[in-house]
């Protein structure tokens, strides 16, 4: 991946605003007595694509929620553009957009209104300019014909693309994706990966992707982090993942199906 400049080119107005960095320092998170995240530290540079991988239940989505301020750390600190991610003011200064795993589209309004909600609520432009922005975002993701549809009328892949388009209308400085390729067929998964990389290349937005998708990580990431059991067990460029040194990481990335000695039988014993 080419190194991106530290600016976010606004896709709609051609103005530039700085891409932001994210720093996670000694982050721990517990729900009751269960510790989900254990002393995690890493930083994401402005304009970088950082892919966070790990088995189900390893705490990836919880970590993502800390970055957008939906969860509060039990210990440690998360900063976005050197501001506390948990503080409400941070969202006023930094435009962050999270593409949820299930889309989190507003089901009672049309796709068009889903995209127009942010500029309308923040009074960004008049209705004509909002329409232009929304149609532009839909066009980027080849969704022009879905504008008047309701989320319930869309396929899984279209919902993900609408969620990305909705995030794009926010002209984000930091874009976060939670499992963007899950529940999609391989071709649609590849399409979404291409969209993420294209958006980063064209608009140089800082991108953090939480995913199980090895192909996505190897093809579009600048750096990859792997979480296992709440700890960060790998942090580095995707090239190092071709032959990982840690056997657990190797097993996660290249699992072998062993019918003679299946994993679930090992778990039982």
């Amino acid at each position: 991946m080419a190194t991106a400049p530290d600016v976010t080119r606004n896709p709609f107005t051609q103005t530039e605003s700085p891409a932001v960095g994210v720093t996670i320092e000694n982050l721990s998170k517990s729900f009751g007595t269960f510790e989900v995240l254990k002393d995690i530290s890493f930083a994401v540079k402005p304009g970088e694509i950082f892919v966070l991988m790990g088995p189900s239940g390893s705490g990836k989505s919880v970590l993502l929620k800390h970055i957008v301020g939906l969860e509060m750390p039990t210990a440690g600190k998360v900063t976005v553009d050197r501001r506390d991610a948990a503080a409400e003011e941070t969202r006023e200064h930094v435009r962050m957009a999270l593409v949820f795993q299930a889309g989190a589209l507003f089901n009672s309004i049309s796709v068009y209104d889903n995209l127009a909600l942010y500029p309308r609520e923040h009074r960004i432009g008049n209705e004509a300019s909002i329409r232009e922005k929304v149609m532009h975002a839909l066009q980027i993701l080849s969704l022009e014909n879905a504008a008047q549809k309701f989320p319930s009328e869309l396929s899984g892949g279209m919902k993900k693309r609408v969620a990305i388009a909705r995030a794009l209308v926010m002209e984000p400085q930091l874009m976060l994706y939670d499992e963007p390729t899950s529940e999609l067929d391989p071709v649609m998964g590849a399409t979404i990966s291409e969209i993420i990389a294209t958006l980063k290349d064209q608009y140089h937005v800082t991108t953090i992707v939480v995913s199980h998708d090895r192909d996505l990580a190897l093809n579009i990431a600048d750096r990859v982090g792997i979480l296992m059991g709440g700890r960060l067990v790998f942090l580095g460029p995707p090239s190092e993942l071709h032959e990982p040194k840690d056997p657990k990481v190797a097993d996660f990335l290249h699992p072998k199906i062993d019918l003679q000695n299946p994993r679930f039988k090992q778990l039982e014993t």
Partner: protein
Amino acid sequence: MRQLNNILEGFGSTILLLFRSIGYLPSLPRQFGRFVEQCYLIGYTTLPIVAILSFFIGSVLALQAGYSMQNFGAKQFIGSLVGLSMARELGPVMVAILLAGRVGSAITAELASMKVYQEIDALVTMNIPPVRMLVMPRLAAAVVMVPVLAIIANLVGWFGGAIVSKYTNFISIDPPAYFAALRRFMEFKDVANGLIKAEVFGLGVVLVCCNIGLNTRGGPREIGASVTRAVVTSLILILVLDYFVTKALM
């Protein structure tokens, strides 16, 4: 102990929600479309059932009063009895109970569903405060529409009592005599106290239902449980508040 904790936590978060909603009140002109939509849902769509129930409550009151009073020769006071009962107690309480069952349950179901399916989280990440967009317009609409519903409930209830008084053989009081009795013993204060009660109940119901909806966690089953909890809590709240507000207004 845990239940007591939950009750106190629910009470605290409801009060906080009220203050946060009041804080967003200046943005009401920007939310005017949503406010009007909520006025329609709270007021207009509840009106038919309020009218039907009020009519029959007024009718039954007149019937029972006429039956009981005929032996004492006190039938001429039926108008004042129905008038005072509807204005001071039954009108506001009935409107609040209908609000809890019809509108409150829908509010909780909608907000709980938005919470469970991460729409509320999406609003937060878009820096759109859910309280400003989802709670404040509903509260403002309740403040405006609930007293209107209570006034309509009173009028229809009085009218129902008048019809029954006229056409029931053992009562047979003409409407002019019925309304004269109603006016003789009733003051503006009685109606105003009833409207204050309706206002307090309406605010309480909408706040409780919004708070329970916004704090729902889990899946479809929890949405159903939240709706049940919101309606039951609202009903208890109405009757508890009824006692204290009535005492305060005496």
